[in-house]
């Protein structure tokens, strides 16, 4: 009884983004210890969705003022959230508790980790862990080629230190098959985890200017780094050849580095645990990632660079969403969970658990140097080779560089990845590829910063406008009411009649008119529901036709394709079934039920069902199981991947829709029932067969209903949401093959709260619906038979 009362009085601390699974004993212990020390707080680590936090849910919750108290986030995205006002500033907390040696403070964390949590001079998160990248080299392979290395003037007992050394080693260590394909790769620039970021950091690149307003992706430093990557690929025979090597048959053999197929790689500390597990005898060498020659010898523009070696560092951190109900408790939790004691407790409990399972993974490095030292002393791998690797990772952390804190972080990532692809494959020159990416990022930066140049606008215009419209409408109504020549009785009756309309009129004003006016207003403004709207004129529409044109067109083409096939085929299926069911034969009710039931299956359930019916794995999916035992041997066609492939996703989607075509059955049966029987009897006397009867009687008489079904079907298809949303969540429909307007709008609206743009998109959709319906009405003249 007592414990029940205590439970009721506890404050609940709701944490998103870091669930405690059955394998995460360390995390669990840390939470339990926290609850033991703070008996008044109950930690609720609620996991939304697939083990990962859903950004749309988080943003919706923050804007809706019901956020969790604490979230666990990749530091890389902190600036993006912060720029939207989604997170609390933590500077005051830090300052207040500075005296407490456990409390987070910049002096107690690695500078890279701490700085990455800052955006425009304020602190928005506290780092939990860090990662970084080093060069791993295969000592055995170096030894095996010692002679060749020596004759090239290279030392086989140490790793390369500069870019040119790295390339020279790679050249000697690479081997090729007789057909010219790669047998062993010395070094692949983007094999482990380096991307352009690492090399660019080594070249002192910064991607953005210090104010974060201008993108320097095409700067000289970035160009130098990308040129080095390209040289690395060219040395192996080009980008394409390396791709083939990485995806070829040997890719299935397991880790290519541990298998001796790649001599050197740059990779992060998170790969250590797997290496220890799968390559216990492996002779791994660890060294700082090689740097530009000038940097190593401290000459040229590196003459004043402090660090000889630099690495790229990232990791996770804790942030408190704006409007969190228990911000103080959240801060208490952050203080505990990032403390050395908690970090060591986490690792200790995790180690205990893993030992019982015969494994010995390395704990993730803490963002506090002191805690890291404690971890190393206590948990360093027993194998000295790997202990040295971990040491190397830790030693490099102080000279870590981090990706710029900017709200365009994701875009910068996408743009740089595209540039690497294009430059290394030779599609574009290094400079041109980077320039293309830079322009893309700059456009977004300009768009966001141009916000300030637009005038503020009074946010209550829509409300006022709604009242004006209602006022004008009401006044007009009042006038015609006055003018109407009604006797007292009819006037009284009219008045009571009008009262019956009140619920709808109120609902119309609140749930239709006001939202419409608001939406129209927002289509011309820029806001994210947390800041004051700015009047941007036609900018949102210009965006629909500019930066986002490709995406918008793509989504419209997709939805037209789906509707263009789905609606006519749906009508065809529905009508065919209705024609079959029309007759009075035995058991017709049972058949009718069979055809009708699929249409009442909830969208979610049918999506789950079809995802598995159509799964590409023929040992689990019914359709492909049937395919491999019939069509494949008969026609020599391999089974398609259906929803998992870009080409087949749409046919699969349409098929799934057809399954529910029985929903229209009721309508078709009624329409068929209403057809005059005399016409059929007469036509039989004329010797008409069933087919002729259909084309001369049934089809013309049904055409108004077909028209109705087409119009409504199109309007409905254009608004398709549930299935597309679920499929994209399940990772189906690659390369945007099921990118549809409403899910896109949903994302823009509830994930980014890009309210202006989402509203413009909504009105575009409305316009499309209107035009399409208009066209259908115009065309209907030619084929719909109207009753005369």
């Amino acid at each position, binding site marked *: 009884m007592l414990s029940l009362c205590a439970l009721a009085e506890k404050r609940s601390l709701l944490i998103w983004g870091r669930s405690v699974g059955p394998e995460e004993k360390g995390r669990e212990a840390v939470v339990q210890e926290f609850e033991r020390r703070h008996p008044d707080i109950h930690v609720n680590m609620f996991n939304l969705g697939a083990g990962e936090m859903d950004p749309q849910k988080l943003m*919706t919750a923050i804007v809706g003022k019901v956020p969790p108290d604490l979230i666990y986030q990749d530091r890389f995205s902190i600036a993006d959230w912060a720029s939207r006002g989604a997170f609390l500033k933590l500077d005051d907390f830090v300052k207040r508790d500075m005296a407490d040696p456990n409390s987070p403070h910049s002096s107690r964390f690695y500078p890279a980790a701490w700085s990455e949590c800052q955006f425009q001079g304020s602190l928005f998160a506290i780092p939990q862990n860090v990662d970084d990248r080093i060069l791993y080299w295969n000592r055995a392979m170096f030894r095996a080629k010692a002679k060749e290395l020596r004759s090239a003037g290279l030392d086989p007992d140490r790793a390369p230190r500069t870019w040119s050394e790295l390339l020279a080693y790679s050249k000697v260590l690479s081997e090729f098959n007789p057909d010219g394909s790669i047998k062993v790769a010395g070094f692949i620039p983007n094999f482990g985890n380096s991307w352009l970021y690492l090399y660019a950091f080594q070249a002192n690149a910064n991607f953005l200017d210090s104010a974060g307003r201008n993108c320097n992706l095409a700067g000289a430093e970035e160009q130098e780094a990308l040129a080095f990557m390209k040289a690395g690929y060219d040395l192996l025979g080009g980008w394409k050849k390396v791709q083939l090597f990485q995806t070829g048959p040997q890719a299935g053999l397991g880790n290519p580095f541990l298998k001796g197929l790649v001599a050197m790689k740059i990779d992060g500390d998170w790969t250590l645990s797997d290496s220890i597990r799968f390559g216990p005898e492996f002779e791994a060498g660890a060294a700082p990632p090689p740097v530009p020659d000038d940097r190593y010898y401290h000459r040229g523009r590196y003459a004043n660079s402090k660090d000889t070696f630099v690495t790229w560092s990232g990791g996770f951190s804790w942030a408190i969403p704006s409007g969190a109900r228990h911000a103080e408790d959240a801060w208490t939790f952050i203080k505990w969970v990032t403390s050395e004691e908690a970090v060591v407790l986490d690792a200790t409990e995790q180690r205990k658990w893993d030992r019982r399972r015969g494994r010995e993974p390395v704990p993730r490095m803490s963002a506090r140097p002191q805690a890291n030292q404690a971890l190393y002393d206590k948990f360093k791998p027993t194998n000295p080779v790997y202990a040295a690797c971990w040491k190397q990772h830790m030693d490099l952390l102080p000279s870590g560089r981090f990706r710029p804190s900017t709200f365009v972080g994701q875009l910068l990532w996408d743009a740089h990845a595209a540039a690497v692809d294009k430059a290394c494959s030779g599609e574009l020159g290094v400079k041109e590829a980077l320039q293309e990416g830079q322009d893309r990022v700059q456009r977004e930066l300009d768009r966001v910063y141009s916000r300030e140049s637009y005038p503020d606008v009074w946010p209550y215009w829509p409300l006022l406008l709604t009242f004006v419209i209602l006022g004008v409408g009401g006044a007009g109504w009042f006038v015609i009411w006055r003018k109407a020549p009604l006797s007292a009785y009819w006037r009284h009756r009219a008045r009571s009649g009008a009262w019956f309309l009140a619920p709808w009129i109120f609902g119309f004003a609140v749930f239709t008119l006001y*939202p419409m006016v608001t939406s129209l207003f927002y289509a011309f403004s820029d806001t994210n529901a947390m800041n004051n709207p700015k009047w941007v004129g036609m900018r949102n529409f210009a965006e629909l036709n500019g930066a986002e044109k490709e995406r918008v067109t793509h989504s419209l083409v997709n939805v037209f394709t789906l509707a263009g096939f789905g609606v006519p085929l749906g009508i065809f299926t529905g009508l065919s079934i209705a024609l079959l069911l029309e007759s009075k034969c035995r058991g017709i009710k049972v058949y009718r039920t069979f055809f009708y039931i699929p249409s009442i299956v909830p969208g979610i359930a049918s999506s789950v069902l079809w995802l598995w019916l159509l799964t590409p794995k023929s040992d689990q999916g*019914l359709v492909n199981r049937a395919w491999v035992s019939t069509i494949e041997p008969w026609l020599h066609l391999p089974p398609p991947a259906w929803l998992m492939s870009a080409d087949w996703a749409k046919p699969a989607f349409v098929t799934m829709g057809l399954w529910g075509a029985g929903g229209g059955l009721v309508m078709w049966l009624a329409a068929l029932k209403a057809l005059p029987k005399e016409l059929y009897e007469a036509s039989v006397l004329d010797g008409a067969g069933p087919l002729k009867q259909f084309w001369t009687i049934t089809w*013309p008489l049904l055409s108004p209903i077909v028209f109705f079904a087409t119009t409504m079907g199109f309007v409905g298809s254009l608004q398709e949401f549930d299935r597309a949303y679920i499929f994209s969540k399940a990772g189906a429909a690659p390369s945007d093959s099921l990118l549809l307007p409403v899910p896109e709008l949903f994302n823009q609206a509830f994930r980014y709260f890009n309210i202006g743009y989402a509203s413009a998109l909504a009105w575009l959709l409305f316009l499309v619906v209107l035009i399409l319906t208009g066209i259908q009405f115009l065309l209907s003249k030619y084929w719909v038979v109207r009753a005369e």
Partner: protein
Amino acid sequence: MKLPILWPILSAGWWLIALSAACVLSCLWRARDKRTQASSYVLAAFPGLIGLSALKLDSEAKIQWGSIPVSPAFLLAVILGIGGAVLFGKFGSSQAKSAWRGAQRQVMLVLGSLLFSLPLVWLVLTSLRDSDELGRNGAVVGLPTVPVMQMYKDPIWPAYSVEFENQRVRVDTVETYPDGTALVEVQEPKVWLGRTFVADRSKMTEVPRPVPNVRLKSGEIGLVAQEFPDGKKRVVVSGQSRMLKDTDFTPVVKNGFKWENYTEVLSYLPRATLFGLLYLKNTLLLGFLNVIGTLLSSSLVAYGFARFQFPGKNALFILLLSTMMLPGAVTLLPGFLIFKSLGWIDTLKPLWVPAFFGSAFNIFLLRQFFDRIPKELDEAAEIDGCSPVRVYWSILLPQLHPILITLALTTFMGQWNGFQGALIYTNSVENMPIAYGLQLFMGDRSGEPALLMAASVIVLAPILILFFATQKYFMEKISLGGLGGK
């Protein structure tokens, strides 16, 4: 014998163009008048245009050979059967012809309803399979097999039942401490699977745990009592424990259904949902409020439109009809902002309050039905001194009960299936309706088809039962058919 087949491989664009050409040709061939011709062009325009836009000029086209293995006797039988039937239909008596047509129809009906019910049958069958078996044997069709399990009290490594967060849970011991406590790990319910805590040993009671039966190479039957991290297993054969490897035995399976999938699904749900009961409660509450709201308000407004004359009525009615064309997407975001300013996010209110202000389609529909009731009825009542509200409530509404029930059912089902609103407005499990719960479950256990299918069946079953119980009202919609109710 192999039946050879020849067919072209074309890119999708070419197929579409071929399809549209076929449309045009067949309609032109059949067409008697301009109208049919025009409709053929309309029909052909879509695939044609899309085909043209998707056409890649470099796409290759080729002819490929294939073959279907058939036995000659079977082929002969098929040819004879079809040929005989066709001849019979063509030249038989008129009775024979109609019998032939009836048979055709029956065959198509049987095949069609099989095709349409197959996915659901598969859904139910898969929900009763073992997820492991599904992945291992590729047993997509055929009778499911399940491992034979047995409740077993292991004397060496006992399972216990103990209180955790006010509920009895089954635990395994990880470590025992000298102070009379033990570190234990939760096994059941699944939502806490792997949670460890320290329990008082005196409060733990020994319970059996389910263990699989295995057949040893010698033919003896044993139980797998314990599994060790190194892959070895302790197998108990007639009371004696032996340490064995996986290769030393095979699991005993039997044909049967795995009903445990259903309980397992429920035990995976977060505790706060009380095994999903809260989802159900939310959905039922929403269904109830939406049904009441929409029936009451829509019929009231429809009554106003149908039975009263007042200036501006037609204009208002046209306004009502035109709101039906407005895509929901336009009002989605402003709606959220309205509910946000009311502080209704993460409550159920945004999902039911709007229902109390009428829905355009239902008002439109009900107005037609009010129009069908003779006006004399309410005039007579009015002369007797009935107020308009009384006329509406006591005279007209009872006349409408079939269509009201139909509307109630469609509203309820729409609510049951509704997903988008819940996705936007609810965050905490306490406020989630069932469809959203299913979607979250789907994300959580995405790799286990059997569990997903079981969850789907759980969501689907009530609605199917409701459908069967009220089937005649669904078909009642036939009378709305002319109006185009879906």
